[in-house]
């Protein structure tokens, strides 16, 4: 049932024999699950390696290596940030829609294929401390004085950048400024720490991280019933000098297939908002969902990040 162009990639990929995807940190068991599902999907036997790390640093390294003509060993860069690589032409331009029959909504610029949607602005509450009734219903509910000293959030501008696309820039600036000034939130540098703190109940409310995978383990945290969901996407980008381009393309196409989506959901609770039945999809139901366009992000990134960072720094 696969399009012929895709079918044609399979023997090439088998000849390539292996594939390296950089982007997500997975444990060995999850890597095995990815490999299994991917190979089964095409009935191949390709050696799949998945690895993760710091995306921004890796991206600029890939750009540098590309310029110098040095192979990085990476075939697919699975990420949301590509500016450095795009600028130096390290990314392969692929017409996913016309050549391989992908859904038009999945295109990310001339290069990538959208595989899942991120949600950095999400609010989380600890159910042990806060009942559903008490929980905020809009982002502006976070201004309620009862949350003073009870909010933990990242020192990162990114949640607010996405939000300013959805709420309007000035509104978002005001919102953040007020939170910082009035609510004395705890600002932490790393996302993992934010999750840990809301989990422990030390701070009953967290902004800027999702906890779908924690919920699966029975952790006492939920995303409360907030009217708006802002998403920015990540996708698979094949590198211009990929040693295994056919396998790379196949991997991207697999990731957006139902089988691929199920695997992503299982491992990391990653999914496209529109993939039915996933945690994100379930949560998105009946809510206003705003996708931040890829181009808008590339365009406004520098300006907004400085703007919000300044506000955040005034709070610490």
């Amino acid at each position: 049932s696969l399009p012929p162009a895709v079918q044609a990639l399979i023997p090439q990929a088998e000849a390539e024999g292996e594939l390296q995807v950089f982007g997500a940190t997975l444990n060995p068991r999850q890597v095995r699950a990815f490999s299994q599902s991917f190979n089964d999907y095409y009935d191949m036997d390709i050696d799949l390696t998945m690895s993760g790390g710091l995306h921004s640093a890796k991206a600029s390294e890939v750009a540098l290596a590309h310029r110098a003509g040095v192979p990085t060993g990476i075939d697919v860069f699975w990420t949301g940030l590509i500016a450095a690589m795009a600028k130096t032409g390290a990314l392969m331009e692929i017409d996913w829609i016309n050549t391989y029959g992908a859904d038009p909504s999945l295109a990310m610029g001339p290069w990538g294929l959208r595989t899942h949607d991120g949600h950095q602005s999400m609010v989380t509450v600890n159910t042990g401390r806060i009942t559903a009734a008490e929980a905020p219903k809009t982002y502006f509910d976070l201004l309620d004085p009862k949350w003073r000293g009870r909010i933990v959030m990242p020192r990162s501008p990114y949640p607010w950048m996405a939000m300013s696309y959805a709420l309007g820039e000035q509104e978002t600036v005001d919102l953040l400024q007020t939170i910082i000034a009035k609510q004395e939130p705890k600002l932490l540098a790393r996302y993992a720490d934010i999750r840990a703190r809301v989990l422990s109940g030390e701070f009953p409310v967290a902004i800027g991280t999702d906890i779908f995978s924690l919920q699966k383990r029975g952790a006492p945290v939920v995303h409360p019933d907030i009217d708006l969901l802002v998403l920015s996407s990540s996708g698979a980008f094949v590198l211009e000098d990929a040693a295994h381009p056919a396998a790379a393309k196949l991997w991207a196409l697999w990731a957006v297939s139902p089988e691929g989506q199920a695997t992503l959901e299982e491992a990391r609770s990653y999914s496209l908002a529109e993939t039915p039945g996933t945690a994100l999809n379930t949560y998105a139901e009946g809510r206003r969902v705003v996708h931040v366009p890829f181009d808008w992000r590339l365009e406004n990134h520098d300006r907004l990040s400085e703007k919000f960072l300044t506000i955040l720094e005034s709070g610490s």
Partner: protein
Amino acid sequence: MSRLNPLWLVYSGALIGLSFVLVSLAGNVVGSFTSDAQFNDFTTDAYVRLLTDPGLPATLMRTLGLGFGSIAVTLTFALPFAWLLARTDFRWKTGLFTLLAAKLAIPGFITAMAYVWLFNPSAGLVNAMLGQTNYTGEAAFDVYQIKWLCMLQGLVLVPGAAFMLIPALRNLDGSLEEAARTAGVPAWKTFRHIVLPLLAPGVMAVAVFYFVVAVEMFDFVAIIAPPGDVLVLTIYEALNAVDGLPDYGLAGSAGVLLFVLSAGAILFYVRFLRQAKKYAVLSGKRRDPGLVRLGKWHGAASAFVWLWVFLTVGLPVITLVWVALVPFIQPPSVGALDNVSLFGFLDGLSYLREPLINTGFVMAGTIIMAMTFAICLTWVVTRSRSKIAPWADALVFLAPAVPAIVTATAFQVMGIAVYQWLPLYGTLWLIMAAMGTRMLAYCTRTMNSAALQIHPELEEAAWVSGLSRWRTFRGVFLPLMAPAIFYAALMVGMLAARDLTLPLIMNSAGTPLVSVLIFDLQTNGETASAAAVALYMIVVLVALALTARKLTGMAEPGLERTP
């Protein structure tokens, strides 16, 4: 001289080591003048941004406070510990050594985590038990303060500092202490006026080195996040852009600011070593010193040791075990006991094999590289009369002020640049070189202090006996440096096993390392497995350390002399 003098090996070793350090330093400096992370433009924007920030003076003051506070705590524990191990009849030497080594193997964030659980104002277990929780300060204990940060950083830096001091203490001629004591000078005054000043190169090295480390350390700042910026946060933010490009410009210029802070201390250190002669205490007229009898002070010494052990090893290990037993990270509670399971331990075990082997390989490679460069550098710095040697030494000293991410990037860039001739890019070798370079400063600190203590006459005696400089280096200098080499190697091995940033940025996917495995599990929310793997790692590393100590005969002298 036409025949090749093997000492050239030493000079070349030093030169390679130095050039690696330069890669890292240059990476930082070059980075500070770039705006797009591609190093193809030159701009001073970042400096303008950094220096015009009105918050900068306050940030600098806080950073300095953090540095000084941390080393004060570190030295408070490390000096007595080193002394207990090297010079006294303290009964639990092996125990103390083991726990110091164990501490090195415990991931830093766990300690911070444990303290946050116990002492956070809003829900901290201790505050809760006292019925004194409060969301807006005013609780009995509030861990979110610079002084706690200093205390915790200070506590965890103790093992490295102690290991740096032990070789220096072991070289000290015991009769110098004995002379003071028979002259009626009480033990602590002897320590203060004789031992401490004679250890000055060592103590200074520890202080300056750990000052740099303390202001560059991120784990505790990240988790405790006391109010107010410190430089390392600026650097982290600049480099960890979740979207867009790492801001090497800002990180680099903040790093250069760290250099400036450190350079003051380092300059002081360099000047101070001009009077090196004073510290040549390992003389050729030496008698095995007796161990200092602790006598009635033994109890107090033990209590002091146990205090540190409890605060720095006990709490984090208990925390790790707890985290390994529960499905998601949470403070201990009666309710959570229902969920306790051994899943994490089993799961962790199933992942361990390959990463463990790779990590072992990286440890060995890093140790060899760091030791080789460090020994060569130390020899050149302390034994050649060259005027530039002290400055070379100061450069090495600056290296730890370069953030790990920047070092990693600099090595990647270098790896890419020389790929045609030396295809190390993407291999473990490059990681080892980068790690070795980062740890070089620790090694040369430890070794320089020890080398300065060796009285020149010991080498002179070899020369006039017709031994070439090379044979003297091998037969006299190296063996006398053995304790310093051992402790430096131990430290490098431990840090190499634990280091995350370098492998994370430089690792090729085919060779998983334990530290990366722990990070992966952790980011995936599989905290139980992560904690279990960390615990396994602690056990393995401590066993290795103990074996090495035994095999090399480096065990601290025990009660040999007293019947």
